């Protein structure tokens, strides 16, 4: 029962605790990757999305919702309230955004769909939300989104009842600076979250 072995064990166990702490800080990134991969929590498909090859006769209604964080002096709204489309049909819709302030501002948008379970079948081919958007003072732009709803929606027993999907965006300023400059680790973590939403 040497004290060396005791110390070694204590060191290993401290390592385990430190590793769990590390994983918990890594979890925002893991969580985002998991949601993107599986469509959980209504996360639409945005990566490795191919153009749809087949369409089905089944129809679905897609509604559009827009929100702006109060720190961002923008007006942001969908050009159309809703569209009716066939499953698999590629659709182009627009949002309009206007910078109401007198200086250029960069914004970026987070997004999801409701009901959550439809996320895995909602595929975005092009979206303004994939990149940061910078608007000049007073500038108004039209922001396109190209998407389709996978025909699998009608075949999956858990989503067969879905006839309406709501796509929602929230614009926010990605450049809000933390109050304390020495908080770099947390900031880096935040950036990672913000990059993907």
């Amino acid at each position: 029962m040497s004290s060396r072995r005791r110390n070694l064990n204590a060191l290993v166990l401290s390592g385990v605790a430190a590793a769990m702490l590390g994983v918990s800080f890594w979890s925002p990134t893991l969580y985002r990757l998991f949601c993107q991969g599986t469509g959980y929590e209504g996360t639409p498909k945005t990566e490795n999305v191919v153009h749809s090859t087949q369409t089905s006769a089944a129809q679905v209604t897609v509604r559009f919702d827009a929100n702006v964080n109060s720190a961002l002096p923008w007006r942001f709204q969908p050009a159309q309230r809703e569209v009716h489309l066939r499953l698999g049909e590629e659709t182009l819709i627009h949002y309009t955004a206007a910078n109401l302030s007198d200086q250029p501002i960069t914004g970026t948008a987070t997004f999801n769909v409701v009901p959550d379970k439809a996320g895995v079948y909602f595929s975005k081919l092009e979206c303004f939300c994939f990149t940061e958007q910078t608007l000049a003072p007073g500038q108004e732009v039209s922001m396109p989104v190209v998407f389709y709803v996978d025909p699998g929606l009608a075949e999956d027993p858990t989503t067969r009842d879905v006839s309406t999907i709501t796509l929602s965006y929230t614009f926010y300023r990605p450049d809000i600076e933390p109050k304390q400059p020495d908080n770099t680790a947390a900031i880096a973590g935040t950036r990672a979250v913000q990059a993907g939403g």
Partner: protein
Amino acid sequence: MAYGAAAAHDEHEHHPTGWKRWVYSTNHKDIGTMYIVLSMIAALVGGLMSWYIRLELADPGLQFIHDTQFYNVLVTAHGFIMVFFVVMPAMIGGFGNWFVPLMIGAPDMAFPRMNNISFWLTAAGFVLLILSALVGDGPGTGWTVYPPLSSIAYHPGPSVDFGILALHVAGAGSILGAINFIVTIFNMRAPGMTMHRMPLFVWSILVTAFLLLLALPVLAGALTMLLTDRNFGTHFYEVAGGGDPLLWQHLFWFFGHPEVYIIILPAFGIISQIVSTFSKKPIFGYLGMAYAMMAIGVVGFVVWAHHMFTTGIGVNTRAYFTVATLIIAVPTGIKIFSWLATMWGGSIDFKAPMLYAMGFIWLFVLGGVTGVVLANAGIDLSFHDTYYVVAHFHYVMAIAAIFAMFGAWYYWIGKMSGRQYPEGLAKLQFWVFFVGVNVLFFPQHFLGLAGMPRRIPDYPDVYAGWNMVSSIGAAITMVGTLMFFYVVFHTLMAGKKAAANPWGAGATTLEWTVPSPAPFHTHEEMPVIGGGGHAHGGHGQVKPAE
């Protein structure tokens, strides 16, 4: 406790006296005693809060608490105090510190100074938590601290930050304590005390320590992110900044579900010791009991989302978490039936600790049955956040844990203080407390089935009847609690001197081979267990544990 006598036994020892003996203590028994005293103080504070809550809830309308934020603060503080500063300090820090080294034949914990800092971090955490309720509006977040309610927008004052720091500090203390227990149990067992001969209480503390080590850092990480969200402009949990409040729920419950096993596993260990002692039989299915605890610990990490059935998770996910949760009933059932099988055919001695052990089994089975009900996602959609859940978790972990703590106190107080408790008064205290908690919590099942929501200080008249019954139960429980404190006082002041082993042939573990009260230093010469060796103190051969 009555340590004057203990110190006199070994006057040749050099150890600090007076306040330094306690503040600088590196002795596992003294530190254990301090944990138990801290737990008793915290229990009075947390208990008074719950009685005030029941007083308000006795009648519909707002009679005593007009500031509903204050009601939320009471509910929050009650939960935090009971979980982190009553049950955990008493069972792990208190009885664990006292009896793990005694039971495995070790002279002390592996890292005595770390043991000291563990205790004082816990005590500091308690002070911070009390401060959090006293500054600003107080934290009205519930013990789950869900954002966005806990965000800077809805709790702008410093009280939530105080609460976060309280949990950080207490959590750090618990992690250090967990490392200490694991190293002690792995490296400091006496010759012959193999892992498979360890008393089940030691097993329970070992599994609990691993759960603490794996779960608490996750809480610390989640809390740190909440702290930076609140104070440094990050957006881990804020949708408007690209975060997600559900991330908090996942992280919290990844910690929170193992946490309820951290609370109840040491209770399992205590109940196993008591049932075996007073049935005068070794525990039935020793290995099954040990590995059932391990199984509960492992499965406890993969069931967290059963707290989140109503957050919109998919139906397949809900099916998985339902099934995984139901599986926990299997190792738990092994434990219940093994306790019953230990009692079966035994010559049962109905002393106060045994009454508490049997009371524990009753409460735990009842709470377990409602747990199986709630595990079903379809049913939980209706029962979520109703009083049915309140009744469930108070039965299965809160009151059950308190019963184990009372049982442990009666079981071991002779060893700790050298004085035996008054048996008649203790039995009376048991019956008052047992009737009290059942009258208090059983009607809450009916309230929950009728749809009464949690965490609301007012309710429609239709719920008035059972709420009044429940509050009467709280009053009876209060009498039982005050009786307990009288028993404590009476035992320490006027209790009869306890023999080294007051329980007779059923008590086979090593702590009964040392004198009562246990001397300041024990097992300095290692006892040899099993193969014909003799234990320290010359009380004859020590049988394999249990």
